[in-house]
């Protein structure tokens, strides 16, 4: 997996690309949480470059979403590819996490 991030004010946009499966899900969690700063109030995860996710990756996203929610921070995910959107729909993640078509939509949402 590869990560990029961009911070503007209290908004952190993290872009993750590649694949997240049972072999790298724990690295995914560490990398993601390592990027969060206490001052970030709004976190947007751009998954536009994510080609594949399995239940191991969903576990990480759920942990991150629950942790941020407990800290009363805003968390959203955007730009899902068709394959990842398929997994989100079936697992009901699109009902419990805010999903937007693009980073711009997520910033406005």
């Amino acid at each position, binding site marked *: 997996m590869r990560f990029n991030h961009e911070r503007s004010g209290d908004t952190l946009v993290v872009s993750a690309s590649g694949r997240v*499966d049972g072999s790298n899900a724990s690295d995914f969690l560490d990398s993601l949480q390592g990027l969060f700063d206490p001052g970030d109030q709004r976190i947007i995860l751009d998954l536009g470059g994510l080609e594949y996710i399995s239940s191991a990756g969903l576990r990480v996203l759920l942990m991150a979403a629950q942790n941020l929610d407990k800290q009363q921070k805003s968390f959203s995910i955007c730009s899902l590819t068709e394959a990842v959107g398929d997994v989100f729909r079936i697992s009901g993640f699109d009902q*419990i996490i805010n999903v937007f078509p693009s980073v711009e939509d997520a910033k406005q949402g």
Partner: protein
Amino acid sequence: MSVARCQHATGAVEVKRSLRLSRSDEHGRFPDALPLIENLLTEMSEAGQWPMTLTMRANLILEELVLNTLTHGDTSGLTEVSIDLESESHSLAIRLADDGSPFNPLADAPEPDLALPLNERPIGGLGVYLVRTMGEELEYRRDGNRNHLKLVVRPES
């Protein structure tokens, strides 16, 4: 690994592949299954010109089931996991067999409650559910000391 291809007049390509995982190194460990599965499916999807969602669904189903067999419960008696794949047009038939403890993915894993709000959703428990939802025509049988599972994957269901 066996290979067979057949080009039909319609342009649909049938592709068959098999993968056998066994305790192959000097410590009696299984090889790293995920890259083997990914490579096999990449090759089949290119040969069969599969839509992306078929490749990803097949990959997810195999990851969930094979990792489950290799890592869950008592794996001391497990010596082999076999995967047989056969694609026809835009569907893929999967046959899995292993000699591990009895596990019926159709009955032995609880149904997750997808209506729970974010903070009440348990971490985990989605893998087998994804398999049951994405897979069609699922059939499980325990035959002697082996689990056998058959299913069909299509790009959309």
